[in-house]
């Protein structure tokens, strides 16, 4: 229960704080744009690379961006929209295991959509559920019920393998062939995941399959909070002797500013920033354990329609895509076109893959009932814990008591 009258003062303070933040962000934005302007052209690229290399050599914990071969301030338009193309997108959802639910299980549901762009055909849709109930999946050795982070990692692998499988099946269809994920491609797993090595191998093997058939792969990140370029600008603003771990722990005088705020005034609808790579241990791992082709690059794309306020998404692509700039430009055009199908400016294909994957509350309850019925049919008794049963009573909708 929320007592709203006790929040009035706090909401007022919050809005005052946010107004102050906005003013401060404007000053930071001005500074960032000045720095960007100083390093915008091609001639500045060697200086930028040198500075990034210095930060790496000093082991200063640099986590910002590094440019590839395009000038930092460059902006790039899309290719003409291909007449024909094949787009594949996958998304996943899950029902996490619950301690108070008997029997315990978890579910991963994967939704995939294939659009034969320009064909006028109805897209293909797929939804594949996987139920996990064996002890070895439900419990970590000596650590109790499998944590959600582990299930998330497993779900990501199911998404990637489904994406690869469906893209592979389309290898003879119209090109360009583009595979899209609703996640960053830089797949990070915490130490909690016991089978992380195997999962990573499967991930790289899926990427290899896509590389083998010459498919474009992209991860789409909506409204990204990333500060890779802001961190680069901060690094460039530092005197050489100030490049230290402490100085690079934040974005210094640009702290609080996000990349999309820097580029939202610079990118026309449909246009992208330069291609950059993120200097992170994960990306290094991708390069070392996968191959040079697995390193992940990114760009920001303005997905707003003409005349609208800028809406930037971050698009991550592997290095084999980076090396084919025609494919990059075509993917840019196709992703932008997908975003124009909905006023929320988010790819239609990802919206539908999510819709195919998502398990709604009543579906989850129906699955629960299905499992209970099956248990009873096998002579077992399924009971929820006292705690769960009590919660249900307290949260239940009030119903009118009627006589007659």
């Amino acid at each position, binding site marked *: 229960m929320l007592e709203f009258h006790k929040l009035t003062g706090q909401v007022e303070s919050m809005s005052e704080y946010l107004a102050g933040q906005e003013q401060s962000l404007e000053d930071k934005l001005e500074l960032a744009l000045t720095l960007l302007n100083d390093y915008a052209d091609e001639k500045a690229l060697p200086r930028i690379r040198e500075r990034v290399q210095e930060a790496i050599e000093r082991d200063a914990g640099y986590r910002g961006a590094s440019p590839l071969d395009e000038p930092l301030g460059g902006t790039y338009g899309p290719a003409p929209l291909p007449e024909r193309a094949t787009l594949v997108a996958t998304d996943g959802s899950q029902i996490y295991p619950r301690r108070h639910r008997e029997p315990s299980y978890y579910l991963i549901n994967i939704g995939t959509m294939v659009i034969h*762009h320009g064909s006028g055909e109805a897209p293909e849709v797929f939804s594949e559920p996987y139920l996990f109930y064996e002890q070895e999946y439900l419990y970590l050795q000596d650590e109790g019920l499998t944590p959600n982070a582990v299930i998330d990692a497993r779900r990501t692998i199911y998404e990637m393998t489904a994406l690869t499988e469906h893209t592979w099946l389309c290898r003879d269809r119209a090109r360009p062939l583009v595979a899209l994920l609703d996640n960053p491609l830089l797949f990070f797993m915490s130490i909690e995941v016991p089978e992380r090595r195997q999962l990573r191998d499967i991930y790289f093997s899926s990427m290899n399959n896509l590389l083998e058939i010459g498919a474009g792969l992209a991860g789409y990140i909506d409204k990204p909070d990333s500060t890779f370029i802001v961190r680069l600008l901060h690094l460039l603003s530092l005197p050489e002797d100030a490049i230290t771990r402490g100085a690079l722990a934040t974005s210094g005088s640009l702290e609080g500013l996000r990349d999309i705020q820097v580029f939202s005034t610079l990118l026309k609808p449909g246009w992208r920033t330069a291609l950059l790579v993120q200097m992170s241990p994960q990306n290094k791992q991708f390069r070392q354990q996968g191959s040079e082709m697995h390193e992940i690059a990114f760009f920001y794309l303005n997905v707003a329609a003409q005349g609208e306020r800028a809406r930037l998404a971050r698009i991550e692509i592997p290095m084999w895509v980076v090396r084919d700039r025609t494919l990059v430009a075509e993917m840019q055009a196709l992703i932008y076109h997908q975003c124009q199908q909905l006023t929320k400016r988010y790819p*239609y294909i990802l919206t539908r893959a999510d819709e195919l994957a998502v398990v709604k509350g009543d579906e989850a309850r129906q699955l629960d009932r299905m499992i209970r019925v099956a248990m009873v049919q096998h002579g077992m008794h399924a009971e929820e814990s006292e705690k769960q049963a009590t919660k249900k009573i307290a949260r239940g909708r009030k119903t009118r008591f009627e006589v007659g």
Partner: protein
Amino acid sequence: MANAVDEPIGRVLRASTQGFSAGARVHQIDTLAFGMLVRAQPRNEEAQGAVYGLLYDIHIDDDPLVRELVLADTTSEEMIRDQHYHRLVPVEMSILSIGFRAYDGQIRHALPPRPPLSLDPVYVCSSEEIREVTSRFDYFRLVLTSQVPSEQLLAANLLIAAGTLPENEQYDFLVRAGREVARLLGGDMARLDNLLRLIYPSTQ
């Protein structure tokens, strides 16, 4: 129009003895028409128990994604087909019960003894069935006393029924129907006039 079809146009969603609603996929909408005669068939596939009715409303619901697509500047053919073929946005049709096939095999123009069940298939009636049902006009009263747009509905149904007859019989059929309507609506000249204008033959 209204030739027999082997495939159902939809399945029963909700029902009462007075009528029922059926859901169909959006791409089946071409087979539907206001005033057409349809049959809800019990799933035991016997003719007895079939409920006949007139389609008086076709309703298409929206959802947030459809609203998004409507507002977008560009919508490609593939997205529209995706909505029509894959998404669970059914066309809902409302049907007024006008008769049923009794256990003696005859069609009775009266409310059925029981409504069709959920998910019973709904078929468009064949020309033969339409001629059989409309060979008598006892169902007119059920239509004209219902809460639906009754003159419009009955007129649309009569024009469809006339279309199933040989050309030289159509005029006589509409004249006979008009006389029956005049008998039933003799005390309500406004409705009678409206209905007669709607079925007035364009040529003779």
